[in-house]
């Protein structure tokens, strides 16, 4: 059963913008490879100032993806994100069913 997730990734602000944007593609690729699918377009927030410095950096590129995937399928992706040097932080949130339906994601289960 596919579940609705929201994945937010912060790419290091010192990385070139093109390299950071390439992450959106590699993210969607690895999601589909894991048996999930990206719902809608990946949301590219661009470079954004942090509310507080992280690793002595003030800026980062924010990417938000709506993902539908079977439970546990994204564990590998999370591990690679944790290891990847360019990724400052990431957050994977399981969307509640009501909110997933509001975003038009629940129906495709």
């Amino acid at each position, binding site marked *: 059963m596919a579940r609705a997730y929201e994945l937010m990734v*912060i790419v290091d602000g010192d990385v070139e913008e093109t390299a950071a944007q390439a992450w959106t593609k590699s993210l969607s690729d690895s999601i589909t490879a894991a048996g999930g699918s990206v719902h809608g377009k990946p949301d590219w927030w661009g470079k954004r100032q942090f509310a507080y410095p992280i690793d002595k950096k003030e800026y980062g590129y924010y990417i938000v993806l709506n993902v539908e995937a079977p439970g546990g399928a994204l564990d590998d992706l999370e591990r690679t994100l944790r290891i990847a040097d360019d990724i400052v932080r990431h957050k994977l*949130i399981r969307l509640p069913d009501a909110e997933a339906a509001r975003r038009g994601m629940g129906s495709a289960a």
Partner: protein
Amino acid sequence: MTSKRNKARSPKGDSAKKFKKKTSVLVTEQVEYVDYKDVNLLTRFVSDRSKIRNRRVTGNDVQQQRDIATAIKNAREMALLPYTKRVAQTRTGRGGRGDGEGRRRNEEVTETPEQVDDTIESTDTGETAEA
């Protein structure tokens, strides 16, 4: 017993005027999902020191307050909201206004040179006033 207590607590006369029930922003703006990405919404549930406002102030019910709290904490993790924010020059000597917690923190902060100068000045003025 319980009925008596309830009676005492039920709003009648002036007590009803004193405690006007606040409605949460979540209700007035019909927010159905508290999103941690919605910084503009979350900042309204946060004090100027970036502490989460309590339920009495926000008018949230228990569930709303929990949603807000988790959303704020998520937003903090992703550096969308600060964990703390320094408020410049709210401190007036020692004691003064503000809650007890604020006062305690102020005492810790006195190491910064500007504020140390402030305290010295204030003590000086106090002496002159006495003289």
